[in-house]
């Protein structure tokens, strides 16, 4: 799966995207985020406030309990501030 990061979350983590094999035991977006947090403090700080995380799977916004597969394209970003 490909994961894309935007804005503050991209800067906190330090990369704009990465490729990953869906880790065993990870079913939902929320579990993926927990898995990523274990990768290091950069991820921990990026995801520190769960209120400030928004996710899209295959270019559609989803909730944190959305079920993902290894073929999905995941995007993780803070609340939007366009307009």
């Amino acid at each position, binding site marked *: 799966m490909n994961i894309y990061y935007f804005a503050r979350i991209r800067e906190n983590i330090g990369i704009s995207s990465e490729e990953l094999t869906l880790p065993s035991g990870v079913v939902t977006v929320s579990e993926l985020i927990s898995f990523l947090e274990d990768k290091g403090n950069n991820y921990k700080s990026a995801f520190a406030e769960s209120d400030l995380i928004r996710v899209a799977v295959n270019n559609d916004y989803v909730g944190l309990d959305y079920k993902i597969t290894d073929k999905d394209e995941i995007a993780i970003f803070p609340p939007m*501030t366009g307009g």
Partner: protein
Amino acid sequence: MRVSVQAEDFNIGEEIEKLRQGRTDLGAIVTFTGLVRDIHGDHVIRKMTLEHFPAMAEKELIKIGEQAKTRWPLENLTIIHRYGPLFPGDNIVLVITASHHREAAFEAAQFMMDWLKTDAPFWKKEETDNGEHWVDAKEGDDIKRDRWT
């Protein structure tokens, strides 16, 4: 419906012309233009960089436009959102609505702006006299959007 996500500036007068050209059935045209301000709270803004999610940005703007069209009798509409580095006084976003009636044109433009703020995948970073920082989403913006639901 014309939707564009672009780095280049837009010309409001020209965009209005495109949308009304050759038509004599429009009674009301409303435009909203969002601009970069030189002050935010206590800080002087030197520059604002708009990051966007290319794969989703245009799609989400189209979705907002389509929603507006199902809710109000719009004859035509335009949504343009810029990205990249911008400076005080620069245009950020343009929404134009054309309808037979003024209420529809006004309300649909407000609706689209409220939804754009919370649902279009754009993020603002400000360069101020006090350093760089990402603009926080306002809780009030969710409330403004949700009054339409």
